């Protein structure tokens, strides 16, 4: 009788504990999964542009009131070395530096525009050009403060009839 009472007392003194081991196992599995599967996203932004409402037409590029940025692949093999030509009416400038940060060509041209709200930039490019050059032109236009940035039809059809041929870039 006394022995039974002592056993009961000893059992009562033992703590009633939750077995945490399976939970810790699962939590560690989840942790390892998220460490391995998780990818940190690079901060992304966006540049807005408008497409021509009437579709790609030759008429759109004939408008002389817009600044035209033309990107062409003149070197043949190297698709990552385009010729950049910026035109506004009779003025034209050439060189990839125009698209770089710190160049004021586009800002200067924007000041020459009569109606900056309606006039803007038209980007014309050959299909072979790497996309990041198009984004450079878009970025440079946005940096210069243009709000109206649009894209012209593929250069094969969009090039202005009678326009002067583009000579290889002299840098």
């Amino acid at each position, binding site marked *: 009788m006394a022995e039974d009472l002592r056993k009961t007392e000893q059992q009562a003194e033992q703590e009633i504990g939750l077995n945490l081991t399976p939970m810790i196992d699962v939590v560690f599995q989840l942790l390892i999964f*998220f460490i391995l599967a998780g990818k940190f996203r690079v*901060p992304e932004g966006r*540049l807005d542009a408008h497409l021509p409402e009437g579709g*790609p037409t030759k008429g759109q590029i004939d408008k002389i009131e817009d600044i035209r940025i033309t990107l062409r692949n003149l070197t043949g093999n190297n698709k990552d070395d385009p010729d950049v030509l910026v035109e506004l009416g009779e003025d034209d400038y050439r060189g990839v530096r125009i698209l770089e940060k710190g160049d004021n060509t586009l800002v200067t041209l924007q000041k020459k525009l009569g109606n900056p709200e309606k006039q803007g930039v038209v980007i014309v490019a050959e299909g072979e050009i*790497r996309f990041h050059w198009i984004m450079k032109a878009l*970025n440079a236009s946005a940096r210069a403060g243009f709000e109206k940035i649009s894209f012209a039809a593929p250069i094969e059809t969009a090039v202005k009839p009678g326009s002067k041929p583009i000579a290889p870039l002299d840098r």
Partner: protein
Amino acid sequence: MPIRPRDVGAKAEMNMTPMIDIVFQILIFFILVSDLQTKDFAQLALPMADQAKPDVDPPKGRMTINVKEDGQIILRSVNITLDALGKRLKAEAEVYRDRDKEKSDKPILIRADRDVEYSVVQDIMKTCVDSMVWKLSFAAAKPQGPDRDGE
């Protein structure tokens, strides 16, 4: 009579509570920072643009078109042809079409790899024009650092 110590049967246990706390904190951190919404966003090397606006509040219903370096078009993690994209665009653009106008207000985000040929993007843009979609944005990576414009 020998005196038996009272705690002779008690097990020596490690206190797991702080460790579990920390492990849960780490787990919650990884769950929150790991991007689970990447269905729309393929792994691409985006072009850099310092003028890119933060894409914090994307327009509702915006379609994201991914273009890989080899020219593959990916929509919601699935490879898609230009024709199929055109059909999809036309169908979805209808919902956003203005009553009085022909063109649609459906927003489109093009996420193209920096080294893809422009002709691929041009074809997508032409498909957008054919579907009367004109509201277009291009995804760009924001350069890290104060004095860089990327590339």
